[in-house]
């Protein structure tokens, strides 16, 4: 299995609070991704990174920011969490830009 660790695995927080999710990889892959998974929507891309300090928006980036200061870590931040951001968040990594992605086991985030 690819070495991807997401933390925390579960989190419950209140509306308006900041939340940071962490994705850590041990594979030295260049590409990293954050997705959210919701019933009826499948997986939707939030942000992705194609190198240290190189990031770009996905299709559902509003309300989210990311940072990648080193190859192994990709952080997703909800600046002011809203109930609509309750979801399961997945991190994925990829070695080459058209290759397969390898996923972490997700973070279940509930915003009350």
């Amino acid at each position, binding site marked *: 299995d690819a070495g*991807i660790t997401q933390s925390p695995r579960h989190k419950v927080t209140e509306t308006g609070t900041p939340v940071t999710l962490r994705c850590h990889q041990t594979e030295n892959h260049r590409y990293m991704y954050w997705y959210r998974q919701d019933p*009826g929507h*499948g997986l939707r891309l939030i942000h992705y990174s194609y190198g240290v300090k190189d990031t770009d928006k996905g299709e559902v980036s509003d309300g989210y920011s990311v940072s990648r200061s080193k190859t192994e870590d990709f952080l997703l931040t909800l600046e002011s969490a809203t109930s609509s951001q309750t979801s399961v968040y997945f991190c994925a990594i990829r070695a080459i830009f058209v290759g397969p992605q390898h996923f972490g086991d997700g973070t279940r985030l509930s915003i009350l």
Partner: protein
Amino acid sequence: SQQGEEDPQALSIQEGENATMNCSYKTSINNLQWYRQNSGRGLVHLILIRSNEREKHSGRLRVTLDTSKKSSSLLITASRAADTASYFCATVGYTGANSKLTFGKGITLSVRP
């Protein structure tokens, strides 16, 4: 917006039977990939088929790709209860160096013992 659309949305079969799942997409692709997701876990890559390939095998999995119809199918032969999971197709388009995967909404497969 989703590029891949899987069909059917749900499939229930008996152990030992074959399971066929279909995926359609809308724009030109570099490759198409199939993933499996067990309950409460992340997605696991199953197989990748390039746009210039028509068929690919991996163990009990067979994937076909018809670029003229913009469709793909995943066949799981001799299914087992452990194949119970959600299956997703995902496409990679020609969008330059930072091409992304676009996922469908998935198919729920239940294999009855």
